């Protein structure tokens, strides 16, 4: 089915409301303040966003206290968050963990945790990657041990979104039923959580070390396919976030090109700069098509969703990185300073490119999916 790409008035209203909110609560000063903290976000702002505005439960069904919206609304939200470099545990809890709860876990856990997430009271995340450097689920080596009092986990999980602050960890590990999800509470015994000094300090990542840590099995049967879908859904949302960041780079660079004079002329009057801006525009437009297609496809539960998600992550990763790099170049020396936020977008672009698999990784997935 052809994707219709229509944004309704309600979508536009959501965008406008969110942009105004983020302008106030996640301006550059706020981003700089939060990125320097260990927690990485402002609890008051999170409370307003998650609780009052209902953003944490955006895609959570109403029966669990959520707003019951689709991926189209989520795409709007992610785009705006990417644009403002919002520092918040949104991707981990409202996208990754929420999707895992919706697609992989048992009724009771789903209900219990989604209600908390939707209310903005619970921050959850998913831990799947390990130190072997792989993002694919076949790379998960951790095995749950079954003992007298239930399961325990031992070993290390890496690159866990907000893993150092989350209240609940959903850990992907193997046991006899196959790839499964285990729930571990933040204060579980034998759990050590370490903040990783990240390239992109606006997004916090943690390393989790488990040492015979008690864990509850919360899924039934092998979850490989369901988790694959969860990762694809996360990647689709991330692509929308990348689009927001790339669009911001394009706008900032264009604005600078219009106002910065050298040799008595705006630098944007030189084709070297004008063409850079024009190329960025083309790529940002393509990136929008890619990310929107993936999110509309998720919303409509289309058959080709996995393909469109891989395509989006492959394209948007490179488009964002390119836009962020050109944004530095167009700003000249200013673009290289700490003082301007240009470098923050550059670091976000690279980290979101690497996170959950880079462009080459997703191109390979796409090639497999479409049979190239």
């Amino acid at each position, binding site marked *: 089915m052809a994707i219709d790409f229509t944004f309704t008035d309600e979508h536009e209203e959501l965008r406008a409301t969110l942009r105004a909110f983020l302008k106030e609560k996640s301006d550059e000063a706020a981003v700089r303040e939060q990125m320097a903290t260990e927690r990485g976000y402002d609890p008051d702002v999170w409370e307003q966003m998650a609780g009052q505005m209902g953003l944490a439960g955006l895609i959570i069904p109403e029966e669990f206290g959520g707003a019951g919206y689709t991926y189209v609304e989520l795409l709007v939200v992610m785009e705006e968050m990417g644009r403002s470099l919002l520092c918040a545990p949104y991707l981990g809890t409202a996208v990754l963990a929420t999707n895992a709860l919706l697609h992989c876990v048992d009724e009771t856990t789903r209900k219990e945790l989604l209600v908390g997430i939707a209310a903005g009271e619970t921050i959850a995340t998913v831990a799947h990657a390990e130190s072997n450097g792989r993002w694919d689920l076949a790379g998960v080596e951790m095995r749950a041990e079954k003992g007298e009092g239930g399961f325990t986990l031992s070993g290390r999980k890496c690159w866990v979104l907000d893993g150092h602050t989350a209240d609940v960890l959903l850990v992907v590990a193997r046991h006899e039923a196959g790839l499964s999800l285990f729930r571990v509470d933040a204060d579980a015994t034998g759990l050590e959580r370490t903040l990783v000094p990240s390239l992109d300090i606006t997004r916090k990542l943690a390393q989790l070390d488990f040492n015979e840590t008690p864990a509850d099995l919360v899924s039934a049967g092998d979850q490989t396919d369901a988790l694959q879908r969860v990762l694809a859904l996360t990647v689709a949302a991330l692509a929308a976030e990348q689009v927001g960041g790339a669009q911001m780079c394009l706008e900032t660079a264009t604005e600078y090109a219009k106002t910065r*004079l050298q040799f008595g002329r705006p630098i944007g009057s030189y084709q070297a700069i004008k063409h850079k801006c024009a190329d960025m525009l083309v790529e940002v437009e393509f990136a929008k098509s890619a990310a929107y297609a993936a999110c509309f496809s998720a919303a409509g539960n289309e058959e080709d969703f996995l393909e469109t998600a891989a395509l989006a992550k492959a394209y948007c990763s490179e488009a964002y990185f390119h836009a962020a790099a050109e944004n530095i170049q167009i700003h000249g*020396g200013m673009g290289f300073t700490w003082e301007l936020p240009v470098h923050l977008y550059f670091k976000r672009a690279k980290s979101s490119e690497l996170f959950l698999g880079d462009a080459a990784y997703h191109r390979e997935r796409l090639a497999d999916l479409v049979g190239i």
Partner: protein
Amino acid sequence: MADHRSMSEDELRARTRALLDEAHPEQVEAIPFRQAQYDHGLAWVHFPEGYGGLNLSPKMNVIVQDEILEHSKISHGMPAASIIGIGMGAPVVLTYGTEEMKKSMLPKIFTGEEIWCQLFSEPSAGSDVAGLATSAVRDGDDWILNGQKVWTTVAHLSRWGMLLARTDPDVPKHDGLSYFVLDMQAPGVDVRPLYQITGEAEFNEVFMTDVRIPHDRMLGKEGQGWRVAITTLMNERVAIGGGGSKRKGGGTISQLLELWNDRNKNAHSAGQEALLRDRVTRSYIDQELLRLTAQRARVTQQAGNPGPEGSVAKLAQAEMMKRLWELAIDILGNDGLAYEAGYELRQQASGIDTTEGLAKYQFLRSRANSIEGGTSEIMRNILGERVLGLPGEPRVDKKIAWKEVARS
């Protein structure tokens, strides 16, 4: 100084061995060794005798280095902070300085006892450096300086600065500039760190308020500063772009290869490994061609100051370095998400001791390669217009008084 003396490679090697007999890098500290090297005319062999050189062709400089490294594990090579002094300060002092300046300044530039910085760029004048606004007004035997410079690398360590200032705002911009050597310790010079993408401050802002500078510290004549500046800029491009390794597979590419050899072989699928390997090979080719092109340039380069061709290597190197370090992060894969050195704002580089740490640092630092010393866009303009002779852009700033030109 076009005709250089002839000296065979063997003679130069013998002369270098004579230096080593007198002062060996493994036995004497860097400063006395470099002083002896200077006194033997082996500092920069293309300089005249008596100023650290032997009036030889510039391509013979590598022979000295080579011979030193053949007989010594350490070479007491150029101190990192001296690149500006050695690459740009020395040629400009040699070409335009008074006898007194040459005698007192050149040896200290070479030994590293005195660091130099380049005070050209200003907030409103980067690519268009000739549009700068810092003013110098004559007052008896002195000039009085007021203005602000920016991006001044190592200004915080510097003893001397190469300063370009406007001595006449009423003539077209290139005609109203004069070039000075500024004493960085003079009253009214205020150096403040400026932090960059890595959190460090390599460069600074330099504020000048009623700074007095004696007239005899002017290089070239009043109003001819641009000509002198061009000498500095051409040498800068060579200093920056003339790099690459002297050895096959050495320098930057060896760091990338080390990272490649140590990579986590499980992190990428076979298909991605093949792609990465191809990119590594491309980088190898890039670095090899940088090295060979520099070698070829040394053969054809005559004594004296370089011309616009220096922009070829500068442009190529800048773009290749950015690509190379992007690739390094892609090889690291997930590990590229971490930045162990952290971004604490600080003046010196923090200890970056592993190749992986270096790669992450360079991934960020190399973004400046296509900006510092003239942007890649400006290099392309120079190559197009000055080397290939293509017509220039229509100019709105050349024939009118500087003060009439629009500025942001």
